[in-house]
């Protein structure tokens, strides 16, 4: 592979098996003549870490997720800023397929614990991205950050049907690790958590085993655990003008330190898959407003057909019902609000009642969550016929600062300096 010192090279392990396993899952096809930011050519390659925006937002959604939320335990602002610098340095290394620290898992003093935990030795970068966000609770009176809290980071309102568990909601900081290899994503979070001991403490974390959204036209639309294609109408990296309008925080948006950043909403949505699986196909399709096979809007033929909300069936009834998910979530129904979604399917074992503890870990990025996510969720929470089969059990809102420019920069520098 490349000349860089990779984990594989350090470990001196055969590369063939790894490369074969990683490559070919998603061939990144041409982006239809539209401008495409730098991206990995294969699922084993690294994604650039430095840039105007953080990687892991418009980066074509990788297959696996490990998401973690932290409470800050130190009371010193300087220690928090130091931690962000140490995290940035470790992330710059790990995303490029290197070990978390300079000595690595086996290169240090025998008496010292290794500065990398070692489970990613021999694995390529695997498209790892690490994306950091700041929760509203960080802007309380502990660090004097209250005056710098952006209006957009105001707490989300209670939404109808919320069954949120505080112990798996919120947090002062979050890190989203996405990669094509779950071991690489877990390795990254584990090493960041370790670096953070004494300054932060893990509040909750979530694994996702399969992406449910596409963030690039080069990707096929995956399916959620209800068996439907999800995120057909998602914002994609090729929609440059739309991203400026809907995704990235602009210079006049309030808190200057967020310019070039984006707001992240997470929702853990438990799916009652057992009852869903007993629903007739026609009911399932009515609930979504799309057919299950192609993902085409009812009345259409192909996935990306324009949705005709006025289409009527032979009986004169609307094909897409008033409470269909696709209608309620559509921008035309929500003042033009759109989201960049990059959620993941999860199964956290079973629930002791003979049911899978499964669902969607919903992740959405946007310029203003109150104008966008809240608007969409309000229309869904009140009416969506899908609600019978789902339950929102965790919620998070985080301000993800702009990208790290170079080795002298760090996550959140503009906020902490």
């Amino acid at each position: 592979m490349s000349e860089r010192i990779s984990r594989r090279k350090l470990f001196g392990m055969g590369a063939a098996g790894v490369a074969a396993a990683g490559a070919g899952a998603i061939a990144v096809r041409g982006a239809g003549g539209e401008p495409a930011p730098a991206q990995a050519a294969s699922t084993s390659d690294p994604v650039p870490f430095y840039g105007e925006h953080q990687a892991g937002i418009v980066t074509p959604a990788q297959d696996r997720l490990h998401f973690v939320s932290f409470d800050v335990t130190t009371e010193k602002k300087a220690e928090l800023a130091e931690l962000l610098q140490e995290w940035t340095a470790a992330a710059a290394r790990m995303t490029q397929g290197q070990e978390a620290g300079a000595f690595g898992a086996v290169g240090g003093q025998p008496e010292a614990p290794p500065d990398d935990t070692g489970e990613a030795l021999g694995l390529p970068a695997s498209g790892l991205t690490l994306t950091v966000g700041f929760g509203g609770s960080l802007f309380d009176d502990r660090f004097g950050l209250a005056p710098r809290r952006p209006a957009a980071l105001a707490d989300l309102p209670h939404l109808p049907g919320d069954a949120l568990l505080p112990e798996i909601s919120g947090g002062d900081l979050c890190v989203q690790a996405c990669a094509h290899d779950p071991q690489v994503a877990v390795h990254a979070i584990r090493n960041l958590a370790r670096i953070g001991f004494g300054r932060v403490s893990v509040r909750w974390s979530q694994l996702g085993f399969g992406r449910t959204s596409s963030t690039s036209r080069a990707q096929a639309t995956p399916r959620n655990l209800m068996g439907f294609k999800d995120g057909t109408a998602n914002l994609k990296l090729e929609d440059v003008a739309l991203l400026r309008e809907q995704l990235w925080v602009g210079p006049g948006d309030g808190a200057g330190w967020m310019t070039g950043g984006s707001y992240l909403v997470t929702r853990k949505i438990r799916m009652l898959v057992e009852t869903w699986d007993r629903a007739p196909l026609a009911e399932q399709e009515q609930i979504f407003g799309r057919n299950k096979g192609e993902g085409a809007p009812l009345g259409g033929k192909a996935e990306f057909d324009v949705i005709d909300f006025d289409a009527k069936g032979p009986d004169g009834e609307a094909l897409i019902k008033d409470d269909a998910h696709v209608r309620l979530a559509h921008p035309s129904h929500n003042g033009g609000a759109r989201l960049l979604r990059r959620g993941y399917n999860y199964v956290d074992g079973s629930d002791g009642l003979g049911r899978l503890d499964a669902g969607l870990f919903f992740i959405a990025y946007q310029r203003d969550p109150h104008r966008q996510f809240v608007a969409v969720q309000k229309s869904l929470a009140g009416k969506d016929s899908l609600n019978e089969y789902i339950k929102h059990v965790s919620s998070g809102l985080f301000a993800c600062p702009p990208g790290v420019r170079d080795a002298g920069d760090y996550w959140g520098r503009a906020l902490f300096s």
Partner: protein
Amino acid sequence: MRTSLAIAAGALALAGLAACSTEPTAGGAGASAAPAAPAKGGPVAVAATDTECKVAVTEVAAGTSTFAITNGGSKVTEFYVYAAGDRVMGEVENIVPGLTREVIVELPAGSYETACKPGMVGKGVRGPLKVTGEHKPLSDDAQLSAATAGYKRYIKSQSDTLLTKTQEFVDAVKAEDIGKAKELFPVSRTYWERIEPVAEIFGDLDPAIDARENDVAEGEEWTGFHKIEKDLWVTKDVSEDGPVADKLMADIKTVVEQSNAAELSPVLLANGAKGLLDEVASGKITGEEDRYSHTDLWDFDANLQGSKAAVQALRPVLEERAPELVKTLDEKFAGAEAALGAHRKGDGWKLHTELSKDDLKKLSDAINALAEPISKIAAVVAR
């Protein structure tokens, strides 16, 4: 839990500084047991009560000093001489009301603190102690051997008390005095848990003394503290436990002999300090250690103190080689002690079952915060 560190268990090393009620041993290499007639001007009298710790003088000459502590209070007390960071320079445990015990301490010039600990808990009643006169700084190697010597002193004094307290516990069990045995259970374990990393070197004895029920392989006999714990708290019948109690005492005696004979290295001290916190993280915070009595916080506190003793023995070396690390360690030890201190109840601790999930998370965070810098010590002392 067995440590993977192999160290040679050599011949009984030189007697270190220690204390016992009848025959105080003199400090320093090659010193032998001698009657209490050391420093010029005789012993420094210390009058200890439940609230006071009156030391006759606040300044002594560099070299060896003898302190004679009389417990005029109603609680069992301890006496310590601390250097910066609570490095134990000398200590005497288990001074019962009415008794006088002596301890001989070798002190280079500098500032120290004396402390009595009525009830044997907490920071104790502190006072300043100034030591003046000639003081030659130790060389690097000498510093390291001073560190292991200092820690051996600690092992010695802890294990002496371990013998006494275990005997009391065993006697109560054999007398089928369940109330008294229950009271003594966490107390005797305190001395065990403070020195466990050294005791653990002798792997076959640790399981015999400290195995939990699920640690025992099928067909093997379950013995030790926790077997008796279950009978005290669950079956409430210790009439069959005489042989188990005798075996516990015999095993403790063997382990104490072996511990005092063990050759220690600075790296072992460092890893022992870490090992004790691992014990806290894996057994005490989860409530698995004392699952019938729920007295896990006694063990927690003992592990923390034992860890601190090992770290502070290394302090002079660390101050020279990694001063920033010392600062962090001080801060994180204070953090862990404060987190634990919130759960003190009288002279003891709250039961594990009285702690909320949030309390346990805070304790876990404090231990994690401390264990990370502690894990860096071994490499510093090894270089």
